[in-house]
């Protein structure tokens, strides 16, 4: 579904260029759950923005469903690393934002507002924020903002879901709860996911393939297929094969950090 083909990206910057990605290639198939891991500042967020067409590659090509990406794509839902909730909208309105923009919801939005509202409230309920629906983003804690942002990425059930460290500000339990939510949703709807994370267990539990990136300028140095059977129960995390995988990934990252 998504292909980055020998992509290089340099930010202009104020005091000289920064090459964030150099000759990165990655291929994510339709319906695949891909995870990207790598050291801080290696270009993971940049990769996400490239894949959705938010920025254009300096060199190389990005294609989505075989078509060259030249501008923001219309089928994605994205949870940014910073929650980026709009401060003038209540939490509920923030979550409903994609419904106001993306077809077919957009044209139905006015008529079926009540139904969409219920849907958004339900989703907020799933992440434990139902009580905060009518509040403003800055009335919530960091982790709560991140959860709301996740809801915003999911509400319109996009064909492509981009998650940039969506659980970083959450405690272990909330995190695992949301893993399960995401897993079930993915299994039910079969969308494509790219997940950036620093938590290798998270990657191993959720993903079909894990891409390991090198330090800046980033590049995919290893791609691992995770073949634990689906659906995966949380208990899979305690299996030796799982721990092994995590350890191997760890080792790989340790290695690329040294280089």
């Amino acid at each position, binding site marked *: 579904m998504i292909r980055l083909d020998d992509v290089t990206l340099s930010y202009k910057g104020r005091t000289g260029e920064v090459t964030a990605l150099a000759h990165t290639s990655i291929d994510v198939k339709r319906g695949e759950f891909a995870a990207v891991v790598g050291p801080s500042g290696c270009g993971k967020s940049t990769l996400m923005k490239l894949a959705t067409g938010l920025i254009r590659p300096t060199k190389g090509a990005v294609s989505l469903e075989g078509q060259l990406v030249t501008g*923001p794509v219309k089928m994605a839902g994205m949870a*940014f690393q*910073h929650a*980026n909730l*709009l401060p*003038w909208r209540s939490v509920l309105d923030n979550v409903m934002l994609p419904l106001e*923009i993306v077809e077919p919801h957009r044209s139905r939005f006015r008529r079926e507002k009540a139904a969409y509202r219920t849907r958004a409230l339900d989703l907020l309920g799933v992440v434990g924020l139902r009580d905060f629906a009518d509040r403003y983003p800055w009335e919530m804690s960091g982790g709560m903002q991140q959860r709301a942002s996740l809801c915003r990425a999911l509400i319109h059930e996009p064909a492509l879901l981009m998650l940039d460290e969506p659980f970083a500000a959450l405690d272990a339990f909330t995190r695992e709860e949301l893993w399960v939510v995401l897993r079930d949703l993915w299994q039910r709807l079969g969308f494509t996911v790219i997940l950036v994370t620093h938590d290798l267990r998270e990657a191993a539990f959720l993903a079909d393939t894990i891409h390991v990136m090198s330090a800046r300028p980033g590049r995919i140095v290893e791609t691992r297929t995770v073949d634990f059977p689906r659906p995966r129960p949380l208990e899979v995390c305690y299996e030796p094969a799982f721990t092994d995988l995590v350890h191997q990934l760890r080792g790989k990252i340790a290695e690329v950090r040294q280089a």
Partner: protein
Amino acid sequence: MKIAAEDITPVAFTVALFVIWEAACRFFRIDAFILPPPSAVFAAAAQYWWPLLKNSFVTLWTTVAGFLLAVVFGIALGLLVGWSRAIYRGLYPVMIGFNSIPKVAVVPILIMWFGIGEIPAILTAFLISFFPIVVNVATGLATTEPELEDVLRALGASKLDIMRKVGIPRTSPYLFGSLKVAITLAFVGAVVSETIGANAGVGHLMVQAGSNFQMPLVFAGLLALAIEGILMYAVFAVLERRMAGWAFRASMSAAG
């Protein structure tokens, strides 16, 4: 207690202003021709309350009409300018140039075309007041954090959507700031036009009174303008609290 203190200050300031003004007039024996004391001004206002009121209404409506034009046009132009850098660069100098020109010079042209009366007043109010709106809307758009825009762009939103959902709300505190400036300018514009050509309005009244050297009445006219300005401001203050309140959260958050 604190709220009470806040509510008193506007009154206190106004009263203080009048007291100082009166005192200065008496103490420095300022000629009533130059600056009549407030007591004389109020006396004149009481004596001529009906013409004052009538003419104030004329000015109020021309001002508001011109101002509303300016709001619509100013926001549209601000969005246009915020939209495209080429338009920004092309239009800004022209607008700056136009705004450096006293509108007094433009009024006669308007009067030639539209005759004296309300239309030139409305147009002058419009011409004088749209620029601050354009500047603040354009600045607001240009300084919008790209991260917030990305939220919409990632959804494949059109540029228009981005304007509506991010640009305009993000800009609204500054839009309201500029409206406060613009409404006062609109009053000035309407009055200036009335002084040059009108049979009604506070500007007309003031010139007439001025040509008879009824300075207290002239100042009563000024006072009427000030009051109208403050009234309009109050309207915006309410609108602002409703529509851009989110931006002023410093004062409302945190513990008490």
